[in-house]
């Protein structure tokens, strides 16, 4: 594993810890499965994920 990959993995892990899944993965999914729909831009995606983590019914984390 190169240092660059390691750093990328750490950043991705850090973002997922606060509920931000990968935007690249989202774009890849949209391109592969819903090529006709316009995907959210990065900002909209960020807010969508933020709302999903904190605003919805997934607010649980441990004591």
């Amino acid at each position: 594993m190169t240092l660059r990959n390691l750093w990328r993995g750490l950043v991705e892990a850090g973002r997922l810890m606060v509920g931000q899944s990968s935007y690249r993965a989202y774009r890849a999914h949209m391109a592969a499965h819903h090529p006709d729909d316009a995907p959210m831009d990065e900002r909209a995606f960020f807010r969508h994920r933020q709302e999903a983590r904190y605003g919805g019914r997934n607010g649980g984390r441990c004591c």
Partner: protein
Amino acid sequence: MLRSAAWVAVALLGAVALAVVGLMRGEPVNAVWIVIAAVCTYLIAYRFYARFIARRVLGLDPSRPTPAITRADGLDFVATDRRVLFGHHFAAIAGAGPLVGPVLAAQMGYLPGMLWILAGVVLAGAVQDFIVLFISMRREGRSLGELIRLEMGAVAGTIALLGTFLIMVIILAVLALIVVKALAGSPWGMFTVAATIPLALLMGGYSRWVRPGRIGEVSLLGVIGLVLAIVYGRAVAASPGLAAWFTFTPVQLCWILIGYGAVAALLPVWLLLAPRDYLSTFLKIGAILALAVGILVVAPPLRMPAITPFAFGGGPVWSGSLFPFLFITIACGSVSGFHALIASGTTPKLIANEGDAKFIGYGAMLAESMVAIMALVCASMIDPGVYFAMNSPAAVVGTDAASAAHAVSAMGFAVTPETITAVAHQVGEKTIISRAGGAPTLAVGMAQLFSRIAGGPALMAFWYHFAILFEALFILTAVDAGTRACRFMLQDLIGLAAPSFRNATSFGPSLVGTLLCVGAWGVFLYQGVTDPLGGVNTLWPLFGISNQMLAAIALTLATVVLFRMKRERYAWVTMVPTAWLLICTLSAGALKLASGDPKVGFLAHAAKVQAALTQGKLLAPAKSLADMHTMLFNDRIDAALTAVFMAVVLAILLLGIRACRAALRADRPTVHELLAA
């Protein structure tokens, strides 16, 4: 061949370390032995027991598509690298719990706590996390309540939902109480924690409008702000005029927290909750790593005895004897029912391959257990005299250094008033006496560790307030997020009767739900804050009982699922820990209800207060008849809650047995796994 030799070596090393920790008497044991014993135990458990569960008990099938594949949407369901997901899951399960319980348990010495942490995690805690994750993963990542409804019926589902709600209430109260204990009369601590609010608001604005999505950037700015707040906090504490603004009594802090909880839970999430969650999550991971490095580098000797006389009862920190109370005092780190909610939350929707479930479910819990071991080390490496002065209620040790030193020395842990004052001075506080709740003790331990690596005594006060801040931060985040989660649960529960109440988006039900939730945990917080015995004494056992009860519910579900999969020959894997948790929670609950000792039993204490009332006498520390009635009311509420917890767990047990018998009668698997269409 070489591999088996390596495993034999790990086993031998672990055995030697355990023997050193368990059998060495007379001279202090080095903390590194505990760490080695723990790591060897985890390695062996993961390599052999977790693999056995994965292959034989559950039959994980790496070729079977997970919800992240079958329901992929790029949002909630995303196949994720297992190491990245491990971090996510670990960050979600590890919080204040594994840091507090072991600190409180250290009053019995480090050995009982350590053995329970290790045995509990291997046989119960990690098993629960792993199997609940597996069950949810095979059912499109559904939540614990839905899983119970699916496999055990609607009645069991509703009972579990009610139980979960009550647990949330108790958890929030006890977490808030820890913050109160740490910040009361501490202008430095209060200032730094208060500073996080404007800081988080600024961060919220930044990531909303200036640079959305740049989490690393905004977190870095936040951390710089925090460090400045800690540094400036010293000046605030030193200036009499400013210090007065940030000095609060416990009761004042209690009202501040209740008000904060109500407002914070109604604000938009991006404004306060999200940015603060960034700070608390990254600080938490950083502090845990630093703690691990600190313990390995400094290699402190443990000054607490392996077993203290309080193992047989009569301890000042919390009442009761080793069995059953040790097993409910240490919940997180050993076995925590709350994890069943996390393992059936976002994680199962992100698993890329069924085979990863072992690493994430079982592995992350082992990592949390290591956090608990480190907290135990921290509490056991400081002077036992200081430990007891910090953790005993004021009713036992008084409020000044002389009375505390006298009382603690009388317990058999010789300490001078000068030592107690010196520690308080070193960490920049006026007093450290009677600051139960774990956080301050841990902070003293961390300050002693870190200052030996960087900064020496000069930086000790900085490290202490850093540790307090980091705990207060994630507790406040938990209070905020927990109040929201609580509100949804309540809306669901009320929605069973009045469906319109479920509408989460309309403001009316949100407001009512939030106020009801804050009111519910506020009652217990107020009770804990005004409790003459320090509150932790009462609330922590309630929390432990409720958390272990949830674990028993989750493990009952796991047992039912194994029966319905027709794998009942392996069901001992979940039945043994279920039975142990039932024994512990039910006997602890029964003692809390019916023990004749007023220090242990709620009803016995109520009777004592009642008897004093009829004679027209006041019972210390009540100062008025109103105080007496409050004590009476609190005892009865606590007793009623304990009874409800016991009823919930018994009902689930009966429903579980019924479901298992029905599964046995069936001639084929009756499990409700949801496969992709």
